[in-house]
Structure formats: C-alpha cells, structure tokens
C-alpha cells in the first residue's frame, strides 16, 4: 500500500483531470439540455396538433431506450455520414438529446401548475405568444421545476460516466486506465466513487441554493 502523500502526488493530477472533464461535460450538457427541453416545450405549446404529437413521439422514444444506444448511434454512426466529431461532442449530444426529453416533461408538469388566468391577462395587455412564453411562462416553469430539474441534472452527471465507453477521458475512464497500469482496481474505483459523490453533492447544494434564492412569497 502506498503512502497517501505519495499516492496523491502520483495519481492526483490524473484524477483531477478526469474530475474536470466530468464537471465541464456535465455542466455544458445540463445547460444545453435545459435549452433543448425549453425548445421542446415551446413546440408543444405553440406548434399546433402536429407539433405536439411530434414532441410526444420524440419524448416517448427517448424515454424508453437506454442512453448508451443514442451515444453509440452518434459516435459510431455520424462518421459514416461525414460528420467526424470528437467523442466528447458525440457523447455530449446524446446526453443532451435524452435529458432534454426528460426535462421537457418536467417543464410540462410545471407549466400545468401555472394559473391559466395569467395567460388571459397576458393576452389582454397585448403580449405576443413569444413574449408571453419568455416573460410569463418560462420564469414560472423554471421556478416550479427546480427540484425535479436538480434530480435530472444529477442523473445527467452520473450518465457522463458512460462516455468512458467511447474513449472520452473523464473520471471513470481515468480510473479504468489507472487500474490497467497499477492493478489496484478496487482502490481506483472507490476514489472515483467518492469524487462522484462530492460532485453530486455540489450540484445538489447549488440547486438547493437556487431554489431558495428564487422562491417568491
């Protein structure tokens, strides 16, 4: 067994690198997934009957397949149609597409909690559809859905570990590499598990604080 200082000196930078990638990918993908979920909600609300049906079909499809499938479809398939993207972009896109579907459902639930009198009021003061969506609907949707959104972002964060299957050098990948180098699998993955717990904790605290900051009386 190595002494802890020595261990930290030798393997610390590798874990830190992986942790950084995981955090950045999770953060960027979360922001993009929230944007995509918002777009899907907008289509559901304003896209007429066929827009609503298309969003329904999309959400049902993505909710009923494991993330690994879209990850592989994009990573292995896109180069065949001439789109050669870095693995992290392919994997990130898959995470955004799937989590966006879940988030649009969360948003839909929150939308239904808004009192419909507000939309009549918005119409009566002459707000356009777009303005109503931006100034009336979305601010409340975001506030109502913060707790569920926090859960979803934590799920997304954990799913970034699957990108190790397509060669992205995030936290889980680094643990795999260190395992192959040192043979100390068990230790490597315990450390990684602790780092994930810490990262999940950071996200949970952030969403908790956000929830407290925006709550209105």
């Amino acid at each position, binding site marked *: 067994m190595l002494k802890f200082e020595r261990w930290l000196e030798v393997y610390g930078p590798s874990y830190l690198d992986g942790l950084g990638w995981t955090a950045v990918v999770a953060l960027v993908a979360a922001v993009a997934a929230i944007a995509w979920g918002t777009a899907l909600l907008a289509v559901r609300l304003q896209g007429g009957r066929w827009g609503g049906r298309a969003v329904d079909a999309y959400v049902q499809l993505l909710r*009923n397949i494991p993330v690994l499938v879209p990850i592989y479809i994009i990573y292995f*398939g896109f180069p065949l149609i001439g789109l050669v993207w870095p693995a992290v972009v392919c994997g990130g896109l898959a995470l955004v597409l799937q989590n966006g579907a879940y988030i649009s459902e969360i948003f839909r639930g929150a939308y239904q909690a808004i009192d419909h009198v507000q939309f009549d009021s918005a119409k009566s003061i002459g707000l356009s559809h777009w303005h109503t969506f931006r100034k009336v609907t979305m601010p409340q949707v975001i506030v109502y859905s913060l707790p569920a959104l926090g859960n979803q972002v934590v799920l997304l964060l954990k799913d970034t570990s*699957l990108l190790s299957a397509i060669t992205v050098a995030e936290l889980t990948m680094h643990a795999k590499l260190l395992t192959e180098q040192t043979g100390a*699998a068990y230790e490597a*993955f315990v450390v990684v598990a602790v780092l994930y*717990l810490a990262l999940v904790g950071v996200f949970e605290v952030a969403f908790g604080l956000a929830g407290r900051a925006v709550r209105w009386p």
Partner: protein
Amino acid sequence: MTSWPMFVSTVTLLARGALVSLWLAAASTAAGTVLAVLLMAPAFSRIGLGRSAYRVFVWVVRGTPVLVQALLIFYALPALDLQTGPYIAGVIVLTLYLGALIAEVIRGGVLAIPRPQWDSARSLGLPPIALLRRVVAPLVIRYSLPAYVNVCVMAVKASSVLSIISVWELTFAAREIIERTLAVFSVLGLAAGFYFVMCFGIDRLGRRVEARLALRGFAGGRA
C-alpha cells in the same frame, strides 16, 4: 444489411440479446425487491444507527454512476476470491442499485399511509404480523406501484450498462454486429426498437395492474 439472410440473422441475434437483457432486469428487480423489503427493517428501525446506515447506503448508491458500481464490483469480486463471471457480477450490481431505488419507493409508500389507518389498526388490537399483512402491505403496494413500474423500466435500461463489463446482452450484441458489418444505424435502430418494446410494454402492463388493484378512496382509486 444488404441481404435477407443477414437481416434475419441480425434480428435473431438481437432478439436473443433482448431476452438476456429482460432476464437480467427481471432477476435483479426480483432480488432488488427482496433486498428493499429487508432494508425496511433498518429504514424504520427505532435505533438511530440503523436509520443512518440505511441513509448512507441509499446515498452512496444513488450518488454514484451504475457504471462505477459495476466496475467496482466486477473488479472487487475476484479480489475477494469470488470467481463469478460477468453475469452473476452483473446481477449483483443491478440488485444493489435497484434495491436502493425500490427501498426508497417502498419507504415513500409506507409514509403515505394515512395516520387514521395506523390508529384504527392499533385500536383493533391487530398483532404486528397481521398489521403488516392486512393493512400495511395492501396499501404500500398500491401507493408504490407507479414508482415501482418506473424502476422496472429503469432496470431494463440500466442493464445496458453491463455490456461495458462484458455481459453479453442486447447492447453488447448490437456492438458485436456493428463491428462486423458497420451497419450502425440499422443495427442500433433495431436494438433501440427492442428496448422500446420492452420498456413501453412494462410501462403499459404496470398501468393495467394499477387500474386492476385500485381501491375505492385510496391511491389510484376514486373516493
């Protein structure tokens, strides 16, 4: 996929993979349910240490990716001199993961039981076993069913992660075929179709059971 025989052999292989996925999900959901019921003892224990231990277990399992748990157990079992092979390791991984999720579902169901139910059961002087069997269990099953069905769907989806620790199931089969044929979209599209049928089917089946079990005045049933 350029020819008919190739299409047939692809679909056959994927169907076999789908069966393995379903089997893995079913076995670990069953074992996870047993684990979850056993976990209710510490979860509702009068001893604080029991409750804390339960909370820590759930927190660790829900706070780390399944893949990390899978790799940890996959590598740790041989280190403990347990030669199991990927299938057993896979079922153990999913059992622990689903067990923690189901435990939270059941705990939520128990907490949803209205107070008067407890009071009336007690006032009847029901012995503990009868209380659990006649009052608690029927209500918990009905309150927890929607969330439980969700976990069952998650079980099928989570089983795909086991392909990374070399468990041969649907996702693994799809990758295997892609490596030989390069027919990425059609093969993964078919695999997605198999997953969709399984997950959607479980969801629909769950809703039917919910409707069948609905009780007047309680979860799912109109008052």
